[in-house]
């Protein structure tokens, strides 16, 4: 395994940690953190996809001639995904605030009036 694969390993670890937090943590805020970790892992995966060894930023300004450039598309994808992640996290946290107001707790196992 070369050093170039390290970002993918980190991305996979982040996703796994996030899913672990989602499955085993009891606090709603920690669940949101888990979801954010998964998002971060996927974003890191996307950015790593576009990386080219010794590449430069994909911008023409002062770019040396005939140089390898990092792929710009994954960066655009990542940026969009970050924006979506921001909206998602904000919405989830707002729900958490209101759940705390109504239920008086953030424990997942106590917020289960909707079942069956």
């Amino acid at each position, binding site marked *: 395994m070369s050093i170039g694969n390290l970002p993918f390993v980190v991305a996979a670890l982040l996703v796994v940690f996030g899913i672990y937090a989602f499955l085993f943590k009891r606090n*709603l805020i920690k669940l949101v953190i888990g979801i954010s970790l*998964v998002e971060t892992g996927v974003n890191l995966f*996307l950015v790593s996809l576009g990386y080219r060894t010794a590449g430069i930023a994909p911008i023409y300004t002062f770019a040396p001639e005939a140089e390898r450039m990092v792929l710009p598309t994954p960066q655009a*994808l990542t940026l969009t995904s970050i924006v979506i992640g921001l909206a998602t996290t904000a*919405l989830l946290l707002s729900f958490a605030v209101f*759940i705390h107001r109504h239920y008086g707790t953030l424990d997942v196992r106590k917020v*289960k009036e*909707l079942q069956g």
Partner: protein
Amino acid sequence: MIALTNHAPVLLIAIPLLGAFAVPLIGKLGRGARNTFVGLIALITAAVAGLLAATVFGQGGAPSLYVLGGQGFGLPLPSGLNVPIRIIFEIDGMGAFMALITALVTLTGAFFSFSYWRNRSGGTLFHSLLMLLTAGIFGMELTGDMFNFFVFLEITSIAACGLIGFRVWLKHSQEAGFKVMALYTLSGMFVLLAVGLLYGQYGGLNIAYLASVITGSTIDIVALGLLFTGLALKAGAVPLHMWAPDAYGEAPAPMSAVLVANSQASLYGLFRILFTLFGLTISVATLGWMLIALALLTIFVGVTMALIQSDIKRLVAYSAVSQIGYMLLGVGVGLAVSVAKPDFGFVAMQGGIFHMLNDAACIGLLFFVSGVVIRATGTRDLNRMGGLAHSMKWTSILFIIGAFALAGVPPFNGFASKFLIYEAAFKLSPFLAVVAILSSILLLAVFVKVFQAAFLGTRQEGLESDVPMGMMIPMVALALVVIVFGLFPGFFVDKIVTPAANALWYGRDAYIDLVLGGG
């Protein structure tokens, strides 16, 4: 009106977006101005969707293309290769069919919600979110780009959860909003991961381009598994359905119907990916039988869980879950035999696809009726209702129409599509048809329970039994759709369902050729 026809795909997204952003500004002018504006936007959107559908079905469902931001979709390289880099909307029969469904549901939903918010504050932001959701659903159905699909998927997730948890003073709506958003986000991340895997392998995001180069390697299979699970979750297939009753049940009544349309859009994405993106590079029999297994579980668990609910909206929500199973069953039978392509496979596809439209109309009607019932009685508990038919005759008749149609009682539209599904599923394996028919009978029993508990019985006092015109008109419109589609199924199957089924079943090459220019 050449220009309007050409730009119909993007207008379907731009006009609701315009509405979504302008509604809060117009809302400052007062309620009347806001309602006029929202109604106008919804009508224009529906009209454009109708125009788009007329254009696409006029040419027999052949795919057409819309390119954002330029004349051509490609960037010719010095080597002469034309790479599709721009964002493309690609509309074939299936996409136009889905756009029709969305237009029907969102139009009636928008008009129903005027009366719903008449005596409450906050309707302005509600309409803004509804428009955003509309734009997102149209985007999912019309886009020809994997990443765009993900973006619209997330837009629908966020807007839908905003609508579910809109009534912040209700404790259960907050719980439902959190759960649904968390699960939607997780499924969205699966889709994004799969998009990343496909991009890393083939260096493209365009569905047609990816379909032309896809090989079915191990990484493709991983991406397929992620997409399958993520979209099955958003469609609400058992055993990933746990969010669905929460979402449909806790959302405001006019929204529940639009949420079902949202689930159907995810289902459309799943079909698009299975038929067009992967095509025959994967073992279609395996995937078809996986869809069928999901379908049987969905039908059976949805119906049996609906039987024991005592909350009227949750009951309708579970029956909505079970209907997703019929669509999965029809298209799953079609997918399972799509190598040999026997006749009954196409019939099954027709049934599954036709049922999407029928389900949208019936379930919309039932959600609206349950909203009216809850408004009249002030409770959602079936055990505390009774005798509504004395004072709400028209509502009871509309309920009977919706319930019979959804349960597949002739001559309503639900029977027409279920008939095709039963016949074709029987050809593949009699067991499938038996489960499907038995569950339909159970579903009728479920609605008999609602009718007995809520509408029959002695007259009760203290009911708010007058139904405002603004609620009645959308319900009557949906009931008319139910009846017309039930009485003349042949016409609609020929004109709109067959092109849609063709687009999935045979249309893969045409879809690819349109972008890659026949080579």
